[in-house]
């Protein structure tokens, strides 16, 4: 068990430091957790490992990140000349052992037209370049009726990538995945997301094409990686509900801690009900069926 865990961490470190050659590393993110931190993590590990030179291809950002040696603004270069522009910054001859590693970061692959993804990737990729492509999972793809049966950009990239890094937020106690999903659908971002600590799912393809999947918690401040142990959840569940209530009926009668916390945190509908400083005032709203006579002193509800 622990052996495979340490293997997983070693594998992750090898991937992040670009020791394993990989022409395309796909980083999948969402509005809940940006891929920026994992990119920085890769650059941190790779630069420890040797010199690197970063070319930043921007569809989205207008700012050149401090780590980038070259910044290509796709809009001003023009998409048709993009691969040319990227290639011009890349060394043409096979690299000497001492020369820096070249990394091309594409800040969002979502904006590459579907019919050109494969071409573009083919034209940049070479033995001495690693492409780090970010793909935003939740941005919907606009379907092209002429390419009805062509795979989606994500499946294309997923197919081509040697390594896939998918980032997800680490959820706090008062938020479960379903609630998160509900919020995100409404374009609402709960607090505490887009954090420097996040969850990372590494899918690594071997030469045979077989993939290995590992989950990690990553803290990009301390550069600490911890394998997510999945059995843990099941253990907890069993510990928490040994109550006699369990098998009495087919209904679930117990309350989980999560539910208890949720119950405690139910927000009351009105502020008035929560501010106790008024000393028990009666909040009265007149209803149309209320019979109130102004002249009658006994009618005063106060």
């Amino acid at each position: 068990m622990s052996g495979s865990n340490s293997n997983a961490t070693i594998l992750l470190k090898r991937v992040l430091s670009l020791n394993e050659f990989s022409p395309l590393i796909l980083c999948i993110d969402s509005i809940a957790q940006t891929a920026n931190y994992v990119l920085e993590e890769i650059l941190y590990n790779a630069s420890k490992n040797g010199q690197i030179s970063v070319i930043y291809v921007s569809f989205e950002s207008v700012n050149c990140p401090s780590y980038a040696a070259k910044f290509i603004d796709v809009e001003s270069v023009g998409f048709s000349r993009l691969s040319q522009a990227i290639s011009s910054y890349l060394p043409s001859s096979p690299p000497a052992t001492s020369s820096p590693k070249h990394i091309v970061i594409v800040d969002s692959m979502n904006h590459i037209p579907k019919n050109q993804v494969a071409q573009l990737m083919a034209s940049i990729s070479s033995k001495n370049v690693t492409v780090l492509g970010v793909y935003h999972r939740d941005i919907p793809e606009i379907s092209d009726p002429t390419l009805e049966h062509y795979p989606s950009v994500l499946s294309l990239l997923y197919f081509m990538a040697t390594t896939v890094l998918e980032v997800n937020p680490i959820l706090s106690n008062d938020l479960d995945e379903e609630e998160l999903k509900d919020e995100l659908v409404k374009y609402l971002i709960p607090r505490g997301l887009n954090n420097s600590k996040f969850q990372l799912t590494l899918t690594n393809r071997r030469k045979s094409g077989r993939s290995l999947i590992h989950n990690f918690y990553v803290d990009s401040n301390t550069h600490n990686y911890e394998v997510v142990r999945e059995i843990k959840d099941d253990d907890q569940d069993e510990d928490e509900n040994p109550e006699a209530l369990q098998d009495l009926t087919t209904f679930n009668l117990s309350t989980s801690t999560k539910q208890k916390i949720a119950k405690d945190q139910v927000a009351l509908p009105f502020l008035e009900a929560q501010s106790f400083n008024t000393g028990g005032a009666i909040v009265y709203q007149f209803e149309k069926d209320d019979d109130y006579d102004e002249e009658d002193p006994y009618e005063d509800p106060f």
Partner: protein
Amino acid sequence: MSSAQRQDLVVFGDHSVISDQIFQNGFHHLITITASPFTSPTWLINSLVESQILGRPYSLNSDSSAVQGHSRPVTVGSFVHEPQLFHNALGKLKVSPQKYKVVDLVTDLVAKSLGKPKNRLYNDILQQFPLQAQSVIVLEQPELLLSLLEGSTSDEIHSQLIAPLMKRCSVLILATNIYNDGEDTTRDSLELSRFTLGCIYKSIAIMSLRPLETGRASDVTGTLRITRGGACSPVHVLENEYLYLNQKETTRLFYR
């Protein structure tokens, strides 16, 4: 409701509405305001403009604990509201009209845009905003262009309008209305969704306005939630959720 509950609007970790550090190093940043169609963000836009010109949103923040910021040039452009509305509202906040510029994108926009190539229209809109370092641009409902211009796409608006606009200033504040119906997979609705998400990915901070889930209440208008966006901010964003009450042209914030 006691006045003690009242809160100041603070977005960044240094107790500022928009931190001075954001304006340093010549970077361009985006802050997105998302609003529902029935909780208009006009008051928030006005307060943000006020805070950038006067250094602090006096109309929102009651005490002086918030940091006094620098006064910055502000340009406001809206695809739904006529300049007069901003002049009236900002006039009431005692913001001098010399300190800001309002770009009229309502009157005759349709007449001007009909039959014109889209990139020229984007460019025409762009040219109305001054190119000025350290300045703030506020743009309201640019997503309307998706509906107004036939064949326009989210990517096109982002690359030809939003990104160039960001390069014209230090901070672009973009107010956009959200529409969510997950089952609607028409092209138009997907484009709108792409637009909204694109804004969120590019933003250093998101301010979302929405009505109470419990429905209309007389003492609370809605909630304002401030969270980090997809882009890294040079200053820590104070993630927070407020309740707000908008009444008789004044707005008050309360902690949730």
